[in-house]
């Protein structure tokens, strides 16, 4: 190597070192009362889940602005509020990418805490990163209970709703409506979460005195539902309970209308804006679940409403939004309870904790799994109306649903 080339390489190395030294990590010191509190998260901004989380970066930025408007997060040991800051990456809906990004946030960005990720496919491989670095992580929409059964000590999750409470309020409603339904038919999307919902709620239906007339499972590839619908029609069930993701069930709902399925009610576990846009008027009269709806007052509901309004996010279009925002609110409450920006103290504060959310209190079990529920909604004149429980309802349930009693 010549002297000049050595000098060039050495110069470049020194310059790189200088840049590295000057670059400040996202968080300087744990427990600091000067630096902002830094949450690290990933969003599925691209890839197959991007339609579910399209506007969440803007929403997260607005959330930070709104929290910091009031001074930030109260830290008792500092005797003041500390501002909040986020490090956000796009996980591309890919588990391996998400794992690499959380490693980066733990080792390069030095974030204080993790919030997110979403989706069970990412919720499987990512939490061990949090456990390895001992960084508390409140995941958002990771609903599969087995994710929480691995003995990991630094994870919590705020999916809305969890499978064991998914249709709790709907089944409460149908036990009180007149005329009382006598039978139910389950139609299930071939997917672990949806199968879990059917398994749970078909048992509860029987326990409630409803006769379960059948359970048909369908794959996402199925476009012609004639045979399935012919069975449902022949069974003449009072309730048709569709346990499915919204997109997979679009042809099912449309063909049920075409083939004039009659029932007291057709219930869909994922009644969303996307489904409404795709099936149009066919959705009229259907009931479903929604984790929360603006107008239902609860803790932080004003903050959440403001954030959603400013970032142009609606619950009906982005039904997983409450899970995402509650993960932020949970971590903030964990820090406030701990009274110090200390990962171990926050971990202790969140263990089996009860935190506030716009939809009510959320209590975590020893695994970090929440007990969140959902409200029952019905499509009435093209709008979403919360119909159960009565104390928070924005309208009365129309029972039996006229559009399914006398199909046009």
């Amino acid at each position: 190597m010549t002297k000049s080339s050595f000098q060039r390489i050495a110069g470049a190395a020194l310059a790189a070192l200088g840049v590295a030294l000057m670059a400040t990590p996202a968080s300087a010191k744990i427990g600091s009362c000067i630096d902002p509190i830094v949450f690290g998260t990933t969003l599925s901004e691209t890839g197959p889940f991007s339609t579910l989380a399209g506007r969440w970066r803007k929403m997260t930025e607005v959330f930070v602005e709104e929290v910091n408007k009031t001074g930030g997060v109260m830290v008792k040991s500092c005797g003041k509020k500390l501002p909040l800051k986020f490090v956000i990456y796009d996980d591309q809906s890919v588990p391996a990418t998400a794992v690499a990004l959380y490693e980066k946030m733990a080792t390069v960005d030095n974030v204080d805490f993790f919030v997110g990720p979403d989706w069970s496919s990412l919720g499987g491989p990512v939490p061990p990163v949090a456990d390895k670095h001992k960084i508390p992580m409140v995941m958002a929409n990771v609903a599969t209970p087995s994710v929480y059964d691995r003995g990991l000590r630094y994870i919590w999750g705020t999916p809305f709703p969890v499978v064991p409470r998914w249709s709790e309020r709907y089944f409460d409603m149908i036990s009180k409506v007149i005329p009382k339904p006598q039978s139910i038919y389950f139609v299930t999307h071939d997917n672990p979460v949806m199968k879990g919902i059917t398994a749970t709620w078909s048992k509860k239906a029987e326990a409630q005195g409803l006769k379960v007339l059948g359970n048909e499972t369908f794959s996402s590839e199925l476009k012609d539902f004639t045979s399935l619908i012919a069975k449902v029609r022949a069974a003449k069930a009072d309730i048709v309970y569709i346990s499915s993701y919204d997109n997979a069930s679009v042809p099912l709902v449309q063909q049920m209308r075409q083939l004039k399925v009659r029932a007291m009610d057709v219930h869909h576990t994922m009644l969303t804006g996307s489904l409404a846009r795709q099936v149009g008027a066919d959705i009229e009269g259907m009931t479903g679940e929604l984790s929360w709806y603006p107008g239902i007052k609860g803790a932080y509901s004003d903050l959440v409403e403001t954030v959603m309004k400013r970032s142009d996010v609606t619950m009906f279009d982005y039904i997983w939004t409450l899970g995402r925002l509650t993960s932020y609110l949970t971590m903030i409450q964990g820090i406030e309870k701990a009274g110090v920006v200390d990962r171990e103290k926050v971990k202790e504060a969140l263990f089996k904790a009860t935190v506030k959310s716009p939809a009510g209190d959320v209590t975590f079990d020893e695994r970090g799994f929440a007990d969140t529920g959902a409200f029952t909604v019905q499509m009435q004149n093209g709008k979403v109306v919360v119909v159960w429980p009565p104390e928070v309802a924005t309208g009365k349930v129309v029972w039996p649903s006229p559009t399914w009693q006398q199909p046009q």
Partner: protein
Amino acid sequence: MSFDVLLQVLIGGVLLGGLYALVAFGLSLIYGVVRILNFAHGTLLAVSGVLASLAFSAWGMQPLLIAALLAPLMFVCAYGYYHLLLRPLTKRNHFESTVGTVLVTVGTLMMLSDITAKAAGATQRNIPLRLPAIEFGEIVISTTQLLILAGIVLLTVVMHLLLKRTWFGRAVRAVTQDATGAQICGVQSTRIKALTFAFGSATVAIAAVLYVLSFPVDPYMGFGLTVKAFTIIVVGGIGNLPGALAAGVFLGVAEGLTGLYWKPEWAPAISVVAMLLILVVFPKRVGARI
């Protein structure tokens, strides 16, 4: 299971099978004449279906008009595509030509799907045209379905007559039987191949409009349809339009009965099972010609 239910499923199966057959017509024609396994064929239906749905929802265009516009558009695009990307491969040796066409058509499939998803979204779309339904006891037949069925029959007859009674049809059959011999007799086989590729693609555009009247499409569903079309070709015979129609109906009814007597989640897989059975039981059936 009552007879009404069975009849309802059979009607649905015939309709679905007819649509499958329409998709297979073009692919069968293209393979029979041009000798190209066009893996992007089903994706052309998906993309055309998305375009048809957009035209219906954005401008309220009638399905017949959409088909009348989409078919020539697809014809021109496919004609250009053949000359630009596929024809140059015919000058290479057999191995390179075969592998090259597979790579080009699979690449086209992926690009078309991604571009359509980016431009129009990845969610499912259809033409929610609701016409009054006819009820016979427990059996319900929608007028839309009857019109689609009429469209399928009409298109099959037109294509059959076109291939049997016109100069273009005779030229197509001549190139299929012996391209060199046809060339000697004055048929411009290269031009006929390009026209056949374009014609086969244009039929998909019409099939797409009929398809989205009954079932939703999304940019990524094309490959599954291509597999079904291949199955129909195997069962019905290459370039054999009545055979393809019969095979399509067989497949549609088989899917319906699988859902009825077994489980609906297994219905989409029955086409692959049927293809394997046909190949094992009738290994020479694939050799049928126009």
